[in-house]
């Protein structure tokens, strides 16, 4: 292209407009991938009545384990629970001085993964009705919050992203108008000599694609740099939560998508910019 500086500028405009929303998308994508790892938290803690002994607890464990809406049950005997509690709190001497173990036998019930909200609530009810069960503790509220937050996040990104992509298209159209204006003489001459609309369009469509593709490449470079820069602290953060890092960078598919989107936007902008000129030439 004849004007490298303005080419670079339009590349940057397209790159920024594509990179920002796709960075958000990548973030949400990664958050969504972390979330299922946290379903451990969705499990139910079922406290049995203190009069129920270990044998009774084992029976309940077997019964509940056979339910279709339950994927896994594990029993934590009250002695084990007391030991763990003592270990974690450092109150072992205090606890040892107690006459009776105040903790009940506890079942950790993990619902089947495809269970929806209503079914999960029904499961809680069903567990609570068992005669041996004292209390069912359910910690699903934060899961629901995370899900809503993710949904809100997606919509937010979609709205911001659409606005930014629209901005990129408008900038591309303006630039294409300038490019076309600079070659107006050529278009007129070619049109008088009988150049078809396709013949006149072709070089400008290539220019549009060149602008868009360059923007797409720069955008994926930006996203890639950003995620590489972010990877180390995020990995460290997740390690603090005892989670293996599922963080995923943009990858080949993401970059290919950005390139394809850039190409499409450039092509579209060139077509829109050309329409006005071709109409005025009656072809």
């Amino acid at each position, binding site marked *: 292209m004849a004007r490298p500086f303005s080419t670079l500028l339009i590349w940057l405009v397209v790159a920024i407009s594509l990179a920002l929303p796709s960075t958000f998308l990548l973030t949400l994508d990664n958050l969504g991938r972390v979330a299922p790892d946290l379903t451990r938290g969705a499990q139910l803690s079922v406290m049995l009545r203190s009069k129920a002994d270990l044998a009774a607890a084992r029976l309940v464990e077997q019964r509940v384990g056979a339910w279709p809406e339950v994927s896994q049950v594990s029993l934590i005997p009250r002695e084990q629970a007391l030991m763990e509690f003592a270990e974690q709190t450092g109150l072992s001497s205090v606890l040892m001085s107690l006459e009776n173990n105040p903790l009940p036998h506890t079942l950790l019930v993990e619902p089947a993964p495809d269970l929806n909200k209503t079914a999960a609530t029904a499961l809680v009810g069903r567990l609570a009705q068992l005669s041996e069960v004292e209390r069912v503790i359910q910690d699903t509220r934060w899961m629901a919050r995370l899900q809503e937050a993710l949904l809100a996040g997606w919509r937010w990104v979609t709205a911001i992203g659409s606005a930014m992509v629209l901005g990129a298209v408008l900038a591309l159209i303006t630039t294409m108008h300038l490019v076309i204006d600079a070659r107006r*003489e*050529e278009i*007129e001459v070619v*049109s008088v*000599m*009988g150049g*078809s609309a396709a*013949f006149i369009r072709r070089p400008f469509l290539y220019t549009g694609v060149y602008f868009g593709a360059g923007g797409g490449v720069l955008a994926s470079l930006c996203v890639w740099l950003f995620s590489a820069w972010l990877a180390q602290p995020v990995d460290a953060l997740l390690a603090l939560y005892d989670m293996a890092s599922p963080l995923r960078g943009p990858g080949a598919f993401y970059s290919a998508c950005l390139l394809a989107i850039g190409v499409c936007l450039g092509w579209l902008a060139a077509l829109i910019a050309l329409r006005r000129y071709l109409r005025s030439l*009656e*072809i």
Partner: protein
Amino acid sequence: MIEFDRVSRRFGDIHALRYLSLTIDQGEMAFLTGHSGAGKSTLLRLLLLLDRPSGGDIRVCGESTAKIGTGSVPQYRRRFGVVFQDHRLLFDRSVHDNVALPLAMAGYAPRESQRRVRAALDKVGLLALERANPASLSGGELQRVGIARAVVAKPEFLIADEPTGNLDPALSSEIMSLFEAFNQVGVTVLVATHDLPLISRLRHRILTLSAGSLAGQESG
């Protein structure tokens, strides 16, 4: 054959052409003259379908141009070679590439295109400047490159709008003899010009426009 049949073109209250009827025969060479604003440019624009008449009909080889739709206009225009007063060459490419433009849009293969471009440049005597940039050429040379570009695809009609407007008399007469040479090999030539002293020496029909109507015609 080009026929204008009671053709009018109005721009608001202004009649650029008023019931104009004229005929240019196949293989003829004719001059179109008249004062500025007499309707010469409007006539050429209508003929090339750069504009459409307000009334009347223009027929080329017996076929009405009114029936030519937008999609077929480019193909129709390729039957004409056009020479402009200001040559309208593109300065971002060589003489060769300028002349090759009509062949590129008609889809010629590079080898055939090269051969035809060289033949056309040879006819106007500029083969040596094939690789030059138009910016380095004189006014007369530029106009000859423009003519080479107009004839390279072997059009049926050669249309020229004030082709000698910017040239001195010697160069003008040189350009006119080029047009005559193409006419002699069967191309129908229509030249719009102010240059009465020049064309009165040549033996071709002169059509004079005045206020959008045909004021007179002298056969050469």
